[in-house]
């Protein structure tokens, strides 16, 4: 780990100045000089070249020292690494193993035997799984998009606000985010209650007929999405706000000088520069939204019918209600694989677009 920084620093610095490409590239050739130390044995028969020899000697010494530090570092980190392996990798690997073998529960605990793809075949042939998958994907796209738009708008307002107002607003906004989802879901359940919910009676007085928020298909999906968006938009807003505050002012000023109006400046200059912050926000949100469990668990139980059954809820039911450990593990493992692929795909597409734009300008 500590071996790498000396090599990376110069090149990273070169790329950081990427907007003004020429000077960065020009500086680069200097860097390799440090990196090509000839074997130390060659130096002794040139006694006249004192400074060069000293420098070379120093670098080789430093790398020995660094290597020693690196080794020491590894020595210190291995217990922590072992714990990380035990608590994160082992359960994942175990559920993958479970999903690929025949699981029986004996008096002695789980017993895995043989290698089988039956659980995944069951999954792929199950309409219930396909439905949960479709619901989860659409729900993720829908909520994350909405949160992204709302969060960005809120961040823009907050940026304008400045001063003490911003602090207060941020604290207020963070309340929903800080609340435990199960608790906030219960609160929403009270508001959505089909007879006594405040939202139900409000809809009654507005539309003349009470809306069944959780009792009918589309309203149930939307009600759940609203509860989700209410809770997580602040998170997106805060990340985007951080991104906004990091933006260099001179670029925007330059755009204004060049005659761009506020709208163009936002779309053409600020938004593209905000990309890294947006990517982080979206990635976090995809990971969470794809694994949504607590909201449907508390609000709808997956209903009405199978309208709001997410993959995580399905996995829980297969594993702990039906006690089908193999298929349950298959649902869990495939969900993890899917969200991983989704995130990688998203990042790849995104990087490609960033690359295009940079070569374009």
């Amino acid at each position, binding site marked *: 780990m500590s071996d790498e920084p000396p090599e990376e620093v110069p090149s990273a610095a070169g790329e950081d100045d990427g907007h003004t490409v020429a000077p960065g590239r020009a500086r680069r050739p200097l860097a390799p000089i440090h990196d090509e130390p000839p074997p130390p044995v060659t130096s002794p028969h040139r006694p006249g070249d004192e400074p060069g020899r000293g420098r070379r000697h120093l670098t080789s010494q430093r790398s020995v020292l660094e290597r020693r530090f690196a080794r020491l570092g590894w020595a210190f980190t291995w217990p922590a690494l072992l714990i990380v392996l035990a608590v994160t990798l082992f359960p994942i690997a*175990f559920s993958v*193993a479970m999903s690929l073998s025949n699981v029986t*529960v004996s008096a002695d605990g789980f017993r895995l035997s043989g290698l089988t793809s039956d659980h995944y075949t069951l999954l792929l042939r199950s309409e219930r799984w396909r439905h949960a998958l479709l619901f989860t994907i659409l729900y993720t796209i829908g909520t994350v998009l909405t949160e992204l738009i709302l969060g960005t708008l809120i961040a823009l307002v907050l940026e304008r606000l400045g001063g003490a107002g911003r602090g207060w607003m941020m604290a207020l906004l963070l309340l929903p985010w800080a609340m435990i989802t199960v608790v906030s879901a219960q609160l929403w359940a009270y508001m959505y209650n089909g007879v006594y919910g405040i939202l139900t009676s409000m809809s009654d007085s507005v539309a003349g007929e009470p809306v069944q928020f959780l*009792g009918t298909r589309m309203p149930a999906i939307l009600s759940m999405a609203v509860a989700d968006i209410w809770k997580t938009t602040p998170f997106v807003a805060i990340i985007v706000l951080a991104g906004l505050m990091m933006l260099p002012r001179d670029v925007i000023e330059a755009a204004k000088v060049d005659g761009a109006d506020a709208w163009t400046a936002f779309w053409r200059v600020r938004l593209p520069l905000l990309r890294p912050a947006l990517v982080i926000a979206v990635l976090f949100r995809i990971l969470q939204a794809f694994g949504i469990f607590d909201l449907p668990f508390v609000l709808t139980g997956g*209903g009405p*019918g199978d309208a709001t059954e997410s993959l995580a809820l399905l996995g829980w039911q297969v594993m702990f209600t039906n006690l089908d450990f193999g*298929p349950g593990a298959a649902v869990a493992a495939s969900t993890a694989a899917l969200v991983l692929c989704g995130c990688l795909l998203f990042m790849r597409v995104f990087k490609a677009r960033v690359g295009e734009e940079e070569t374009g300008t």
Partner: protein
Amino acid sequence: MAFCAVPVLLAAAACGSAAGSASVDPRDVGPASGSITWYAINFGPEGLPQKLIDAFEKKHPEISVEFHAAPNNTDTMRATLTTEITGGSSSIDVFNSDVVWPAQFGAANLAMPLDEHLPDDFWDRFEERRAAVTEYRGKHLAAPLYADAGFLYYRKDLLDKHGLEVPKTWEELAETAATLQDSGDVKYGYVGQWANYEGLTVNWLEMSAAAGGRIVSHDHERSEIDSSENRRVLDFMRGMMNDGVAPSANTSFQEPQSIQTFVEGDAAFHRNWAHGYGEANTPEISAVAGKVGVAPLPTFEGEEGPGPSAMGGWNLAANPHSDRLGAVLAFIKWMTGPEAQRMLAENSVLPTNAEVLKDEDLRRDDPVLALASDIPLVARPSATPRYPQVSNGVFTNINGSLAGSTPPGAALRAASADIQRALDDEAL
């Protein structure tokens, strides 16, 4: 990559499960002493489990029992038990087990078969059907602790005011409810548990059985939900929703929501378990206390009455990993015996002990208990470990149809296909 990891993990898992095994040696259960942990959802009036424990400890001073309250949700409790017991933990010695669990827990080795440890005549203390539903493949996996059944609660005051009879059929109920609603005395006619969860399977089972329908065949091999009897029931339920007899919110009601609507005075009729009577007649939490009557569930016109009630309640089961099985068995024997069962009955929890259930003195004081031993019962199709999937096939499709997203015919066909797949072991 995942495939490479598997053999290594299999080896690791095999080692893991071989170590620390706690297999049960039939006759060697250890002495009836020591401290045991009892894991259960709170039941009865506040503090009842502790009262039972105190009485037990007085009789068995060499055993101490600690009560661990489980989360008030059957599925969550099952998840906790599964995690604990499959992990080989012995931190729970004895636990309350839902009446629909024995087959599933037996198939997954989550409960210890009790037959070898208890005398053969032990099971005679229960009503025959009660004891029968704790069996899986000829072995008793639990002992009945307390019973439960569905009842119809009604607004006595409103029926008296309008000179109406307690309905004997669902059709009469709908008519009576409509009359009361039209008079403006009550907002809704009927509330039950029609949300997307196992409670709907129970509500469905009762109404379907009243109409002569079934969910699965007697041998648990075939789905029988797609029948004309069941079509009649589903049409009737949808009719109740369409006519406004049942609120449209009924499709999102579990027990707490339906009872809330009833105790607020907003519903004329209410189906719930036995605890519904006490709750509706407690002035602190009920606006209709003293105005509530209890009756057996209605049947359908042309069918024999009263309608059957779903068999509910909880059993006691032993963790196969417990290292205090002697004490656990003593606890199970005492809890199902006359003294404890009488305590239950006095606290309006339905006993399972046949002798206590038939006690005339107790029946006089408790109208629910008086009904309980006479009403016909119907068991959920839980003799198969596939019951959770069967139930899922019932409640998702029926709930979907009640919420208006599927026509009744299609819903029953879909339910039938789902149930058949579950029975054939091909359902997720």
